[in-house]
């Protein structure tokens, strides 16, 4: 775990062209960046592509990064944009498999793996933005303002999206609660 000062030092060194410092930033942020991307594109391979593309874009734009700011939100905004680009291209991807999983008879609610599948299927039913907002806020703990910045919407819109996404998710998983 690095302190914000150490992270800032890494960002400054990376800006000066130090690739080892940039690798340090990759090590620090890749897990969170992956989850941000995965929440948008849902498919593992696409999430990996988005993370790689996001880091490459961040490297290309590092001269424009303000080192007085935190690197994480800046990076995640770029990763989210890369993921949204991929999601737009993959719009035609069939979600039948996930939808079937969501609607399949619930055999054993106690099974952890099945619960996880049901949840993944329910999340896949949400829009990209709604899903991303839930994951970023409830799982990763980003603030509404940070989420808004990453997704290119006002913080209030991210907050409203979260409210509606949770409602929809509850509806989709209603039978698990009964």
């Amino acid at each position, binding site marked *: 775990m690095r302190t914000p000062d150490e992270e800032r030092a890494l960002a400054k060194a990376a800006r000066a062209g130090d690739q080892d410092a940039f690798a340090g930033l990759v090590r620090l942020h890749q897990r969170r960046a992956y989850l941000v991307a995965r929440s948008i594109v849902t498919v593992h391979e696409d999430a990996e592509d988005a993370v790689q593309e996001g880091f490459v874009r961040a490297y290309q734009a590092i001269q424009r990064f303000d080192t007085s700011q935190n690197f994480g939100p800046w990076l995640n905004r770029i990763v989210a944009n890369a993921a949204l680009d991929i999601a737009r291209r993959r719009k035609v991807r069939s979600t039948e498999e996930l939808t079937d999983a969501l609607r399949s008879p619930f055999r054993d609610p106690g099974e952890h793996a099945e619960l996880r599948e049901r949840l993944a299927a329910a999340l896949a039913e949400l829009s990209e933005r709604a899903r991303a907002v839930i994951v970023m806020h409830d799982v990763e703990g980003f603030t509404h303002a940070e989420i808004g910045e990453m997704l290119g919407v006002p913080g209030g819109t991210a907050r409203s999206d979260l*409210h509606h996404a949770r409602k929809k998710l509850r509806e989709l998983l209603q039978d698990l609660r009964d």
Partner: protein
Amino acid sequence: MTDELKFPDAGDRADSPGEPVVTLIREAYAPPDAAAWPDVYWAGLETRIMARVSAEAEKGWWAELVPWARVGLVAAAAIFAFAGVVNNQLGAAEDQMAYEAVNQPDLTTASDEPIAGQYVSTSGDAAALSYYLSN
């Protein structure tokens, strides 16, 4: 008035899906390859990212110009086309001038003086008077 007041933070947290669901989401969205050997997976992803970053760095400063190449080509084509049109129009004007030079009499050297012995056709009283006075 903003949405900040409509959905206060306390309500947000109270409405949260709760830790079990958060854990399930984390698991559902974890990389499949990371389940058994997470450190190996993340080290591998870091290596792939840095390989792409290094490749990007090796492209050098001129790679920055690549996106401008198309703009440059379009601009060059436009300039070339414009130069062609201008050249064509100048050529047409020169042709016209050459044509007129050949087909029209040279007015700058023409004279109103009759050539000696040449009959000058005139009409009216002034012309007749002029004829008798000159003979």
